[in-house]
């Protein structure tokens, strides 16, 4: 890196020296602009030809949300199932599978999209939500209500799309692909395209379609960086202590994704190389903890978090079961939900108390669990 003194020189001789490394910019050539215009026209033309006038009719997948000749690559065998939502039956699903694992591209994988209300059964809903939150999802860009990772995402649709019983409608995408769909932002773009098309077909589209325009500014830290370990203060949450021998703890993989005022997650998984699963499988969840303050995401869990305190002395409302713990309270002026999704670990209540204590302190509100006010 040339330091600034090198490029901020003054005077003629300095300038001459600089001339060797710096290019002095003056005027664009007319030809350049012409070429740009021509390129635009050409590309537009080519695209149109390819999409509409190609030798094959365009493939349509996921209710037409994604259409292009050569969905998921140009080679290999592509199959799909399609079950589009309608105004009368606002549920839909689709699945696109590509197998070119023996072909030149090496692509292999399946992308599934589901449109419809969140699962009705509370335990099922929490486990379903956990599947999207953990281990490494971050908030969708552009303030869109939902979460996304390289392998999938969940978007909560506006209230007008909700089911008759009030459950919010969602679009969920889940990719099992080798290589991946490309990255977090690429997955977000696919998810939002499916959401727009789904709303159109279900008859609840209104105004401008949802759009992803921004990049994703913050990705989760790499779990292999060793910034978090399982054991004491897991996920850097004070008091979140996971019991076990050194060997047992070593076999656990903690992951922190977002730590913002909208979302915070901490999950601990048993990686597939420990549990004996396939390497490209997700790890088996030991437990997952999340703080959610984004209003549409909160509405997904609001009814599960109950109307009464979850336990004696707790602030707010909630529900503690064998499968999940959920609590909801005002925190720094926002309705905030805390959840623990139980996997193979049985330390639930202690983990939940430690997590809610630490996160409420970070957000600047009173603790939820009783007996902590003195901290």
């Amino acid at each position, binding site marked *: 890196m040339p330091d600034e003194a090198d490029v901020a020189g003054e005077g003629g001789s300095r300038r001459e020296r600089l001339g060797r490394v710096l290019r002095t910019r003056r005027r664009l050539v007319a030809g350049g602009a012409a070429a740009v215009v021509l*390129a635009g026209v050409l590309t537009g033309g080519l695209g149109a030809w390819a999409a509409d006038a190609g030798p094959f009719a365009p493939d349509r997948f996921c209710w037409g949300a994604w259409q292009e000749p050569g969905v998921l690559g140009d080679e290999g065998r592509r199959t799909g199932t399609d079950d589009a939502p309608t105004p009368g039956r606002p549920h839909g699903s689709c699945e696109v599978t590509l197998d070119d694992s023996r072909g030149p591209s090496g692509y292999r*994988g399946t992308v599934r999209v589901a449109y419809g209300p969140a699962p009705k059964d509370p335990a099922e809903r929490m486990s379903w939500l956990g599947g999207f939150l953990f281990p490494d999802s971050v908030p969708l860009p552009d303030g869109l209500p939902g979460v996304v990772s390289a392998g999938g995402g969940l978007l909560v649709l506006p209230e007008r799309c909700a089911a008759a019983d009030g459950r919010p409608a969602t679009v969920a995408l889940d990719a099992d692909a080798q290589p991946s769909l490309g990255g977090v932002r*690429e997955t977000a773009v696919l998810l939002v395209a499916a959401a727009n098309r789904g709303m159109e077909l279900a008859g609840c589209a209104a105004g401008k379609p949802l759009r992803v325009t921004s990049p994703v500014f913050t990705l989760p830290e790499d779990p292999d960086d060793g910034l978090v370990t399982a054991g004491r203060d897991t996920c850097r949450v004070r008091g979140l202590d996971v019991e076990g021998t050194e060997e047992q703890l070593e076999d656990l993989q903690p992951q922190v994704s977002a730590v913002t005022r909208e979302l915070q997650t901490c999950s601990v998984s048993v990686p597939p190389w420990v549990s004996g699963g396939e390497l490209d499988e997700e790890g088996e969840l030991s437990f997952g903890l999340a703080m959610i303050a984004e209003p549409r995401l909160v509405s997904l869990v609001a009814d599960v978090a109950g109307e009464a305190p979850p336990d004696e002395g707790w602030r707010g409302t909630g529900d503690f079961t064998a499968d999940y713990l959920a609590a909801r309270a005002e925190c720094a002026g926002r309705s905030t939900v805390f959840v623990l999704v139980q996997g193979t670990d049985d330390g639930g209540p202690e983990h939940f108390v430690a997590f809610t204590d630490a996160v409420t302190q970070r957000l600047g509100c009173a603790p939820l669990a009783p007996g902590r006010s003195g901290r």
Partner: protein
Amino acid sequence: MTDERQPRADSGTESGSGLRPRDGAGDGDRARDGAGDRAGDRAGERAGERAGPGTDAGSVPAASAGSPPRRRWHPRRLLRGRLRPVLAAALAGALLGGTAVAWQAEAGVFAADEVCWGALDRDALSPLVDDPGALDAAELPPVSTTSYPGGLEGTCRLSRTDGSGSTGTALTARLHKLSGNPGGSAGEWSGTAGEWADRFLGGRMSPLGGDMLGMASDERAWLAIPDSCKGRPAEYEGPTVVDVAGPPAEEGAEVAAAERNALARIVVELVNSVSADLGCDGAVADPADGMARPPRPAPDEPGAFCGIDGLRAPARWRDDRWRSLVTPVTGPVRTCDRQYGTSAPLLRLMTVEDPRLAQVFIDELLRRGDRVRGAAHGYGSLRADRGLYGARCQTGLVVFVVQARDSDHPEDIRTLLPQYVAAESERLACGDQRLTLPDP
């Protein structure tokens, strides 16, 4: 894939903390938690066998020389014509690059209103300087560098030449990677990183807002390349940023909103241009309208030095003419600059809250000055004119800095650092951070 994903040699076997002195011997020597070779093997397996989560996939810069982008499914293939204009724009960009030779050769016919890597409309400069159309541009377009893995650098300087041949710089823009370990220069203020922090993390700065890792004042602005473009920087690496410096403000002048907004827009334009060159999707929106009102110097409320409840400063820093200039909203850093009347800042209290930015201070924190120990996983360093302390908080590494302009009152640093760390770690829920200072 990228170097960061390769298995690493494990030299550190201490348990518990992610914060520990780095052996100076080189990049392979990263200390990390965990189980030695086995964890390294896992990293290799993950990189090789598995479509990685979040951090790696899609983060290979398309423009990085020598490492072909990983083949992947691309949404453009999945989406219909609505993305076609984007495709056209990308092709146009390529062609633009191709014509660069002709353009550099001054065959130009129509006016170049864009300067600095083809990213800036000269009009963007009009709040900052008179007659931006008359500025000369000297540029080193963004290129990958071999100075560090995955590195990028570029420079652009806009200046005015008067009749006598002397020049005045109107704007200097740089693309570079911030590093906490510049090497050499033992005893310096984190080498270039410390100087960078002095200039770009001051009390005049306002966060760009949202989730952006960037700030702007009426003199300078900076913004990191988004994680979704080049990946999240690995541990011990700082972010890659574009920074810009415009004309300096008059001493004692309050932060001018129009100039600050202009610099915020300029840095965003430059980052968008670099991202597009790297083949990354997504453009950062104009941040100016969403930014907080610029900070204004104000006297402290009683008992709240620098606006921090319960923080008491040595009497020297407390008479009626002192003013605090404090970062107006939560962002990558919270800085408080203490100035006497309209003087330049004489004391700075700073909390670096973004863990990626905090890495910029890692060298100073772990290897310079006299050692400061903390009660909980923390480390720090102390010198006559500054004290630093790093703690592991829920968000990751947080660095607390107490910095005086001169070395005349080392006892003030000793008094302020533990108090400041205690008050700020309470705010950020970093836990009990009792410091043990080295003997004076």
